[in-house]
């Protein structure tokens, strides 16, 4: 059946995407002048130490070979070193971070909830907010509301995320003292605390992202509102709320959900700045650490995971097209 084949094809493609991204990561990484072994060599670093460290971490093979080992590891698991001190990384092994002394998989698993909480919460806010504002300014085209929301949106995109976050902390966290100024509490430990810690990051992230949605919705809305079927909807005696909120909106959503897929995907891969400012131990921070400490295995893990989420999001969006607009059905 058509749909099944479509999905199958996409999944296959996804796997290839991941393979390629992984390969790219390795390749790029070896373009860097940095030597990961150097960092776990200690100071002062004698050539012998360097050599042993390199061998132990498995960096002594050509990178393409290492990549293959990495792939193999996913299915067979891996062991680094030998004897009692050997480090085991059970299948599926996405590498082992020698600097964090933990398997990449467990690291990512431990950070995912944070980023997920952040991303999902924020994305809902920015979607609703953005679209609502967009619709509003479309209906009130040229009015002060339109101009103001536009200015707001522009501020959102052009303001440096870091500053917004800092200001938010200064105001809500330190001055008014109504929300915690940083950190993260797992939902399981305390739902209230979870919400409380996330509320500011959510709003900040949403503010930074909402612009695209507001502007896209607005412009598309203006297009659709002129269509004949809107007239029909009115002639049916539908309340304006339904005419706009249902008939028009549905015709606007295609590009909007597309952007949503892209943004959600990338934020789920790690909202670096927000996580840093609010010191939330999420994937973004993990990634940054990996980059700054040239922790290749961790880098691999983070990159692959991010890629996976993005591809997945895009895929779901593509499936959604058909639902939103039968003419755009891809299957």
């Amino acid at each position, binding site marked *: 059946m058509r749909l099944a084949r479509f999905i199958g094809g996409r999944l296959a493609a996804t796997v290839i995407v991941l393979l390629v991204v992984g390969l790219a990561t390795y390749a790029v990484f070896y373009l*860097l002048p*940095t030597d990961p072994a150097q960092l776990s060599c*200690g100071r*002062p670093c004698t*050539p*012998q*130490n360097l050599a042993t460290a390199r*061998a132990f971490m498995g960096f002594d093979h050509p990178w393409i070979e290492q990549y293959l080992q990495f792939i193999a590891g996913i299915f067979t698991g891996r062991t680094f070193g030998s004897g009692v001190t050997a480090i085991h990384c059970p299948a599926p092994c996405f590498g082992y971070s020698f600097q*964090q*002394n933990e398997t990449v998989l467990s690291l990512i698993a431990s950070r995912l909830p944070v980023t997920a909480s952040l991303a999902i919460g924020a994305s809902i806010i920015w979607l609703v907010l953005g679209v609502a504002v967009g619709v509003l300014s479309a209906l009130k085209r040229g009015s002060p509301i339109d101009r103001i929301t536009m200015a707001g949106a522009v501020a959102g995109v052009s303001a440096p995320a870091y500053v917004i976050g800092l200001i938010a902390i200064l105001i809500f966290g330190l001055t008014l003292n109504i929300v915690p100024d940083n950190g993260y509490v797992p939902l399981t430990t305390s739902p209230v605390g979870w919400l409380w810690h996330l509320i500011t990051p959510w709003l900040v992230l949403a503010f930074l992202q909402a612009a695209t949605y507001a502007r896209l919705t607005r412009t598309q809305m203006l297009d659709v509102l002129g269509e004949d079927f809107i007239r029909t909807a009115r002639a049916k005696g539908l309340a304006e709320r339904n005419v706009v909120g249902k008939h028009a909106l549905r015709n606007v959503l295609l590009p909007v959900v597309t952007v949503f897929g892209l943004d959600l995907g990338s934020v789920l891969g790690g909202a670096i700045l927000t996580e840093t400012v609010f010191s939330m131990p999420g994937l973004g921070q993990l990634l940054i650490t990996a980059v700054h400490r040239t922790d290749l295995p961790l880098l691999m893990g983070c990159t692959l995971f991010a890629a996976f989420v993005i591809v997945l999001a895009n895929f779901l969006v593509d499936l959604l097209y058909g639902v939103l607009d039968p003419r755009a059905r891809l299957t």
Partner: protein
Amino acid sequence: NANPSPSTSASNTTSKPGGTLYVLDDNSSNHFDPAQSQSLATTTSGLVHRRLTNWDLSGPTATLVADLATDTGKTSDNGTTWTFTLKDGLAFSDGSPITSADLKWGIERTFDPAFSQGLSYHKTLLAGGTTYTGPFSGKSLDSIETPDAKTIVFRLARPYGDWPWIVSLVTLSPVPQGKGTNAAYDTAPITSGPYQVASYQSGTQATLTRNPHWQKSTDSVRTALPDKVIFQLSQDDSVISQRLIADSGNDQSGFGYSFVDPAQLAQLVNNPSAKSRLVTSQAGAVEYLALNTQRGPLANLAVRKAFQYAVNRASFQVASAGTPALAGPVASTLITPGISGRQAYDLYPTNAAGDPAKAKQLLAQAGFPDGLSGLTLLVSTSNNGANLAQAVAASLAQANIKVTIQPQDDDTFISNVTGNQGNYDLALTSWQPDFPSANANIQPLYQSSQIGNGGFNLSRYSNDEVDAMIADAQATVDPTQAGTKWAAVDKRIMQDAPIVPLIYTRNSFLHGSKVDNVQVPDFPAYPNYLTLGISQ
């Protein structure tokens, strides 16, 4: 007292034991496995691990004191064989007694590639160390002898006067024999210090609680006042500062792990309360501009001398902390203040603002009447290096020396400057010695063996005479003798002007109102965790 800084007043209020100390840390993880730790003897790891010797930072210069050992070590043969004896009544956090065998094991363990990230000065010094690969394969390192449970003897490959300093490094802490086989040890070590790791979530928080088996009586360096120490990990620098300035809730008994950056310092100027909780060292690591002595014009001594005058240290001070008072004094020596044996001198006297005219003139004499151009200046983007580099570049421009700045990600920078090509002209960086000896200040940076291969001889300075002097000084056991020798090396090197010393960087730290006795000595220019207290 070393630092007449606001905090010393606080240090006088003798604070009682108890309370929880919060460390606001911008790192995302901590190493508690001694073998993997590179931290200073007096910071994080110092709270959980003890070594044979330790540092006393209360004086103007750091001095060596006994910790687990009864004394700071004896050598029978001018520094090749060193013998230490353990105190009585020492115990690990698991209750087992600390024996010389545990110490041996702990040190041997550092040779295993799985745990080789820590400081490794000892690996080349101990006889047979270069080929030894750790105890887990069953082999032991014969150059460490434990005639009895209390005595430990080290045989070195060559005479080395600073060995007592080496054994003060966190890496050489005891580990119960046979323990610490796997990575888990990093987050749940068996400790000898006053604290043990109660819980550790990477990226979030590490909690230290008291080690019931540690006895104050056996420990002269640690006051161990707080009941609990909590490291809040991966915090954002500016946020840390803002929290400490706000000084509310737990932050009152917290302090910032990392330097307060210029912007925040400026914020403190008219905030007396916060200002009173800022501690600034009197000196610190030397910030310097390395001149690649193997590149074009820079190979020419006269040119290098010209640099000494060209640089405007005043604007550098401002660029690094807004005011000289916070930035640190102008530097002229290689050995930093706070290290015994240092002799102050200045071979190239000039005022802080530099002397472009003289620089030009020197360049002209050196055969570059219309200055230099196209020099590359490497700098790490971390710790606003790029801005500092701009200050330097701007002042050099005054003397017709045109440089192009190449800011690089920290790792890239390190591997470029410590790599073998050395395709750069200038590099801007600073050096924090690993232990308070002139040796650690000079040898890693100027011995010809340290060029490339990950060595930190950034100016690629190679001078046999100097190498010889260094070897001789290292072999000297008597501290004062050694001191004078090192001072001589210092001067000798500066005659060749391989670097331009800029400032002895002062580090500033903020702390909450309840944190007592925050001392930031000249060396190491970090708060001494071991003596911090919380006022109830």
